[in-house]
C-alpha cells in the first residue's frame, strides 16, 4: 500500500523528516520502500488495521504527538428503508447501507480527496467511487458504491455454490465456481462481496444518487477470491486481513462529510444491520510475565504507557483490546507490542546455554557415500521432483504449476538422464553425476524411499590416465568395489536410441535404496573435503567452447615439472580449462610426449580462431623457452 509522507507528517506535531518516520516504521515492524516521498508499505498479514493513513498514524503515536481529529457528519440521519436480505449472516455479521443524493457533481476536488489523487498520481473514476477509494485510504474500511437508480429490487447477500457469471465494474467477465459470497439482484450476481462490484450497478460520472455499502465480511469467506478470479482488489486485500467491525458509523459519517464538502446533499438515509455483537477482548495486566517473555525489566508504569500510546485501554486489572486489533489476544501478543515499542534492537542479549547434544548424526552412511562419490569425480545434483509423465503408483499434484509438472517423480534416473544430456549438449565429454533424494509413491498410503542414483557416460576422467577410457559397467563395478567391497550393484546401460543426441558413449546408471548400504562404507577413508571457504561464483557462459591440443616432445626429463607448472598455471580470460590428456614415455628414444588440451570459452562472445591462436601462441612462445622441449610439426 502506498502512503504519502506529506499526508502523514501533516498530522505529526514534531514534523519529523521522511528518514525519521522511516526508522520509526521499521522499529514498529512496518517494512517499506520510499519512492519520491511515497512510502510503499508492506504490512504483515496480521496488521490489517494499519492499511490506512489513520491506522499508520495510530501506530506512530508511540513516537510522535499526533494531532488528528475526527471530521465526520454529526447530524441525525433518517432511517433508510431498503429491501435487503442477508442469507449468510456468518459471512457478513455487520452491514450498513447509506443512501445519499447530491444536487450537482463537483467540478474539482479539495482537501484530502484532492491530495490523495494528486500526490499518489492516481486516476479519478467518478465522484462517489473516488470518495470511496479515498476513504479506504484514509480510514482503512472499504465501501462499495451502487448507483441508487440501478438498485430497484430486493438486494440479497448470500454465499452461493455453483456456476455463475459476473461482470466486474472494470468490465472483466468472471465465471464464478464453487462457493462465493455475493450480492444478488433478480438472481443475478451484481457484486463479488469484498472483492469488486459489478458493471451493471456501478456508479458512473453521471451518478448523483448512491447507495454506499459498508460491511464486515468474515475473512474466511473472502480469502483467495481475488487471486482465484485474477481481480486486483485493494478491498479484498483489506477484508482478507480483517477490518474493524465497529467502524461503520464513523466511516459512513466521514463519507457524508467529504461529499458535503464538495456538493449540496439533497437526501440522506442510513440503515445498519448488526446480526452478531462483537465480543470485548481483555487481557490480564501481568508485567512479570511480559518481562519474562521478552527478557527485560520494565515497570508497570512504562508498560501501561506503552500500551496507551498504541491505543489500548486500561480497566482495573485488564487491558482492553480495541476492536481494530483482532491480532492481539494473549500475553505473548502484548509482549510483542511492548517489544516493538522498546525496539527489538534495544532488547538486551541474554546468553543461551543449550545442554550438549549427545545423539549421533543420523546421516553418517549417506555422508560417507557422498564423500566416496566425490573422490571418484562424481558431481552432486539436486532435481525438482515435478515431472510431466505419470507412472505406476505415482503421486498426482492436485494444483500443479503447469501440465509439465503434474506428477511427482518415481525415480531419480530420468532426472539424471536429462542432466547428462544437458551437459553433453554443452560439449562435456565426461559426465558423472549423482543425486540422493526421497522418492514418494502411493501404495496403500504414501510411501517414502530414500534413494541414491548415479549416472555416468563418456571419458572416465580428464587426465592422461583416464582420458582414453570410456565409462563402462566394468569400470563402475571396479570403482564401487573400492568403497563397498561387500555389496553388489546392478548398473544398467540406458539405450540412446530414443534420445535426441548423436553421441554414442554408453550411459550407465544405478538407482538403489540408501537402506541397502551396509556399515562397511564407514571404513572408507574419504579424501575429498568440502571447501572451508565459500567460493565466489563466476558467471558461466552459454556460448560454445573450443579446444586445442598441443603435443610436446621432451628429451630432458627434468623439464617435465617445469613445463607442467608453466602450462597448468597459465591464466587467461578465455582459457577455461587445461589438462594433460596424453602421456607417453619412449624409453628407447629417451623421449617423453605430453599432450595438453586447452579449452577456450568467452562469457560474452563466440571466439574466433585468431583470438584462440593469440593465446596459444603466447603459451607456445613461453614453453619453447624451456630447453630440451619441442613441439613436433610446429611450423
Amino acid at each position, binding site marked *: 500500500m502506498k502512503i504519502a509522507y506529506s499526508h502523514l507528517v501533516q498530522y505529526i506535531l514534531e514534523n519529523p523528516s521522511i528518514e525519521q518516520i522511516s526508522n520509526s516504521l521499521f522499529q514498529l515492524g512496518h517494512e517499506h520502500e520510499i519512492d519520491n516521498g511515497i512510502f510503499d508499505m508492506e504490512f504483515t*498479514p496480521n496488521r490489517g488495521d494499519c492499511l490506512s493513513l489513520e491506522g499508520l498514524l495510530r501506530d506512530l503515536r508511540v513516537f510522535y504527538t499526533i494531532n488528528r481529529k475526527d471530521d465526520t457528519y454529526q447530524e441525525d440521519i433518517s432511517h433508510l428503508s431498503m429491501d435487503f436480505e442477508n442469507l449468510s449472516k456468518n459471512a457478513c455479521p455487520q452491514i450498513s447501507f447509506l443512501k445519499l443524493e447530491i444536487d450537482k457533481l463537483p467540478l474539482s476536488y479539495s482537501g484530502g480527496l484532492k491530495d490523495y489523487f494528486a500526490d499518489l498520481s492516481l486516476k479519478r473514476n467518478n465522484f462517489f467511487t473516488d470518495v470511496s477509494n479515498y476513504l479506504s485510504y484514509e480510514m482503512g474500511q472499504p465501501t462499495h458504491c451502487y448507483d441508487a437508480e440501478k438498485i430497484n429490487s430486493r438486494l440479497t447477500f448470500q454465499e452461493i455454490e455453483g456456476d455463475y457469471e459476473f461482470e466486474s465494474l472494470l468490465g472483466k467477465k468472471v465465471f464464478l465456481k464453487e462457493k462465493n459470497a455475493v450480492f444478488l439482484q433478480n438472481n443475478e450476481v451484481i457484486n463479488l462481496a469484498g472483492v469488486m462490484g459489478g458493471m451493471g450497478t456501478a456508479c458512473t460520472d453521471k451518478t448523483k444518487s448512491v447507495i454506499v455499502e459498508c460491511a464486515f465480511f468474515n475473512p474466511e469467506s473472502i480469502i483467495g477470491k481475488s487471486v482465484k478470479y485474477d481481480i486486483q482488489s485493494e478491498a479484498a486485500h483489506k477484508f482478507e486481513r480483517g477490518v474493524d467491525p465497529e467502524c461503520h458509523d464513523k466511516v459512513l459519517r466521514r463519507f457524508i462529510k467529504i461529499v458535503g464538502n464538495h456538493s449540496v446533499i439533497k437526501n440522506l438515509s442510513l440503515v445498519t444491520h448488526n446480526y452478531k455483537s462483537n465480543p470485548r477482548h481483555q487481557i490480564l495486566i501481568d508485567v512479570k510475565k511480559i518481562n519474562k517473555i521478552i527478557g527485560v525489566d520494565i515497570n508497570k508504569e512504562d508498560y501501561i504507557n506503552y500500551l496507551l500510546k498504541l491505543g489500548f485501554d486500561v480497566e482495573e486489572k485488564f487491558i482492553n483490546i480495541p476492536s481494530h486489533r483482532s491480532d492481539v489476544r494473549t500475553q505473548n501478543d502484548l509482549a510483542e507490542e511492548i517489544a516493538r515499542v522498546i525496539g527489538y534492537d534495544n532488547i538486551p542479549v541474554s546468553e543461551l546455554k543449550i545442554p550438549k547434544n549427545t545423539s549421533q548424526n543420523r546421516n553418517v552412511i549417506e555422508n560417507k557415500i557422498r564423500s566416496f562419490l566425490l573422490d571418484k569425480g562424481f558431481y552432486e545434483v539436486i532435481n525438482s521432483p515435478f515431472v510431466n509423465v505419470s507412472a505406476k503408483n505415482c503421486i498426482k*499434484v492436485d494444483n500443479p504449476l503447469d501440465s509439465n509438472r503434474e506428477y511427482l517423480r518415481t525415480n531419480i534416473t530420468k532426472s539424471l538422464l536429462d542432466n547428462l544430456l544437458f551437459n553433453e549438449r*554443452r560439449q562435456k565429454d565426461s559426465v558423472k553425476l549423482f543425486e540422493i533424494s526421497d522418492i514418494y509413491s502411493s501404495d496403500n498410503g504414501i510411501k517414502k524411499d530414500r534413494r541414491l542414483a548415479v549416472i555416468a557416460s563418456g571419458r572416465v576422467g580428464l587426465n592422461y590416465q583416464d582420458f582414453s577410457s570410456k565409462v563402462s559397467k566394468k569400470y563402475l563395478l571396479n570403482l564401487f568395489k573400492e568403497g563397498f567391497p561387500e555389496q553388489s550393484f546392478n548398473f544398467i546401460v540406458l539405450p540412446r536410441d530414443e534420445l535426441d543426441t548423436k553421441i554414442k558413449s554408453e550411459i550407465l546408471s544405478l538407482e538403489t535404496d540408501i537402506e541397502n548400504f551396509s556399515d562397511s562404507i564407514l571404513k572408507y577413508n574419504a579424501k575429498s573435503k568440502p571447501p572451508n571457504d565459500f567460493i565466489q561464483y563466476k558467471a558461466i557462459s552459454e556460448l560454445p567452447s573450443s579446444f586445442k591440443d598441443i603435443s610436446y616432445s621432451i628429451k630432458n626429463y627434468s623439464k617435465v615439472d617445469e613445463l607442467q607448472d608453466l602450462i597448468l598455471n597459465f591464466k587467461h580470460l578465455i582459457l577455461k580449462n587445461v589438462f594433460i590428456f596424453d602421456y607417453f614415455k619412449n624409453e628407447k628414444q629417451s623421449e617423453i610426449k605430453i599432450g595438453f588440451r586447452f579449452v577456450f570459452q568467452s562469457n560474452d562472445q563466440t571466439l574466433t580462431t585468431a583470438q584462440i591462436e593469440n593465446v596459444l601462441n603466447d603459451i607456445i612462445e613461453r614453453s619453447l623457452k624451456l630447453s630440451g622441449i619441442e613441439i613436433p610439426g610446429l611450423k
Partner: protein
Amino acid sequence: MSVDKDISLPELIKDRGSLHPINHMKDSIMNLLISFGFEIVDGPEIETEEFNFDMLNIKKSHPARQMHDTFYVENKSNLLRTHTSPVQIRGMLEKKPPLAFISGGKVYRKDDDATHLPMFHQVEGIYVDENVSFAQLKDLIYKIIYSLFGEDVELRFRPSYFPFTEPSAEVDILSKEGKWLEILGCGLVNPVVLENCNIDSNKYSGLAFGLGIERIAMLKHGVTDIREFYKSNLDFLSQFK
C-alpha cells in the same frame, strides 16, 4: 625409506567431484547448530494439513493454505510441506522438554520466477525449556549470523508475523553495498503451538528460527539467479570444490 619421485612423470590430477552448493550450505549450517547443542530430526516432505498448518496455528483463513500457495496432492488429502516446521511438531510430540531440534530439507511453495522456485531448502530449529526469552533468542541469532557472515556484519531485528511464533522477528544484515538483506525469521514459540504438542505453556516457553538455504548460498557465493542451482550444469557445479 623414501621413494624418489619419478621426474619423468607429470602429476596425475584426478578430477574430484563436488557437493551441491545447497547441500554444502545446509550441512554447514546444521553442523554449526549441532555444535550449539541441537539434535537433528527428520520428517516427510509429504505432510498432512494438520501437521503443516493446524498444529502450527496457521488458521484455515491464512493465505498460505490456499491452492495458489500450497501444492496439494492425492485429492487434497495431503500436501507438499511448505516449511520444515512440521518436523519440529513431530519432534515435540515425541519428546518432552527440554528439547533442542533442528530439521533441514526441501520445502515446496507454488512460486516460480527468478527469485522464487517451487522447491527450495530450509533449516529450522526449535528450543523449548523453562524461561526461554526473546533476549536469549537474540543471543542465538547473533551467534548464527556471526558464524555465517563474520563478527563485523551489522544486523537488525524487525518485528514480523508468523502464526507459530509470538513475538516474531525477521533479521536483516547490511550488505557491503549498504542494503539491508533479509536473512532469517525467528520468534518465541506461540504458546498455542506448545499446547498443541501437549507441552504446558505455563511452565515452558520456546524459541524457533528458520533460514532459507538458497538465499544464504546466493549471498555467500555471489550467485544472482536462484535457478542456476538447479540446472545441473557442470560448469556451475565444478566451481564449488
